[in-house]
């Protein structure tokens, strides 16, 4: 069980096409990078996520044209509390990249990517439903899995696994 330690140094990773493209566009948009277990993670500032997705999708060197997944992790009691995670896939390059946006617990709001990939619709609704993260610009931000009149967001860490709330 030999695991290589994660690389988090931006200097070592800036040759990665996605990182290079984002840095060439706006160095302030990239908050950090992580290369761990052969998977690339890029931390993006909240305000830049939609434009970053457009760039990575349109740029021929990256060509991340397929949105695999949008999900969220609740890091209570840490701040910023929420991490919204986008898994992108490049079908032509057969590569994946993970984008992350950190959101504070008191205002978990981020711009929706449904205008780039309409398929983000259900994924974002699921995150909204189970975590209470709001996506601005989403065409139909309603609960997806839980009943419409449900109170609370079940996948938050302060929501108990069993028993009554």
């Amino acid at each position, binding site marked *: 069980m030999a695991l290589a330690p994660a690389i988090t140094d931006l200097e070592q990773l800036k040759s990665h096409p996605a990182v290079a493209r984002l840095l060439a566009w706006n160095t302030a948009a990239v908050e950090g990078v992580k290369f761990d277990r052969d*998977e690339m993670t890029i931390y993006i500032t909240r305000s830049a996520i939609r434009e970053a997705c457009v760039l990575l999708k349109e740029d021929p060197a990256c060509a991340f044209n397929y949105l695999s997944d949008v999900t969220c*992790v609740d890091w209570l009691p840490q701040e910023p509390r929420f991490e919204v995670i986008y898994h992108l896939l490049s079908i032509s390059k057969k590569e994946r990249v993970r984008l992350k946006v950190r959101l504070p617990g008191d205002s978990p709001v981020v711009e929706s990517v449904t205008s780039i990939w309409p398929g983000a619709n259900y994924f974002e609704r699921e995150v909204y439903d189970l975590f209470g993260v709001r996506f601005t610009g989403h065409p139909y931000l309603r609960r997806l899995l839980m009943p419409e009149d449900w109170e609370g967001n079940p996948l938050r860490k302060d929501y108990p696994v069993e028993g009554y709330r």
Partner: protein
Amino acid sequence: MGHMTPVPVLEPAADKTMILNMGPQHPSTHGVLRVILEIDGENIVRIMPDIGYLHTGIEKTCEAKFYHQVVPLTDRIDYLCPMTNNLCYVLAVEKLLGLEIPPRAQWLRVMMNELTRINSHLVWLGTHAMDIGAMTVFLYCFREREQILRLFEAISGQRMMTSYFRIGGVSLEPPLDFFDRVRKFANTFPSKVDEYENLLTGNPIWVMRTKGVAKMTAEDALALGASGPTLRGSGVDIDLRRDNPYTGYENFKFKVPTATEGDVFARYMCRVAELRESIGIVQQALDGMPSGPVKADAPKVVLPDREKMKTQMEALIYHFKIVTEGFAVPEGEVYQAVESPRGEMGYYVVSDGSAKPYRVHMRSACLANLQTLPKLCEGRLLADVVAAIGSIDIVLGEIDR
């Protein structure tokens, strides 16, 4: 009960249209899918799927379980392809742990995974054909499915909820005559696929109900996040088994069937061709099955053999430790995607260094594929909705989790 009130409410947009509710208890919605339709005579104006009736909070439950206790939960997400879900989860955890899996376990996994794909496609073919009115195919498909379920029972003790793949390998060495039984099945199966095709592919009623129905372009399919045969039926050549090989798929030769028409018939042809490719992979796995252990040499993670537990003190101690307190997984996160019968099944597992996963997220192929339904049914007739739902092959257990 939010679901008791008709939310989301669609209001008729014009005088001559009406709202029609379909499901959640409807035989051709493949589970508990509710679809709200606005129709103008027989024509669909708008269509809106409503899901969540089978939501059991599996992702939340996973956070309270040890890593090895999550495996049986993954069966229950998609009850038609349990082993694919097992595989995806154990691959993710093995990647977090940095575990090396012995070749025999990998080949067993590939073989069982492909049998699972055949099993799932057979249920799809039978129910899809029955939805459109071809009753006979259902009986034929379930005849072969029964044989596969017997194989599952022989190898894992369970017909449907197999939990056969474990973190670090597979749970048991297959029984003595198992490979002979699989070979017997694999030798006869191609002729059975011919039988299904005889009943459907040239059947004028089947062709009329499926050709040119519920079309989708490659651009739309990609934008909506479709995957698997739903995407390949629209002409996008992608298969994660070939493009991002996992668990030894790089050692196998197989074709990835695609079709360009993007209609129900194209998706049907893709899946039927996949049946033949899958049985080819099973044959290759049988021919080249390596010998050796079926579990990784990692006593802190993998449960010891039953026999050793009765004779060796260490084995007993490790067994006790794993069962009572689990095993710690190094901090990190992994997204592992596999090609399930329905498309890209992904597990995103986050570890905080403890013995329980901090977060387990399942990327459901069906959830994304279901989003294509409005696109497929736009401007079509009411009867085509049933064909369209059948052609994207959804399992509601996986959509709702």
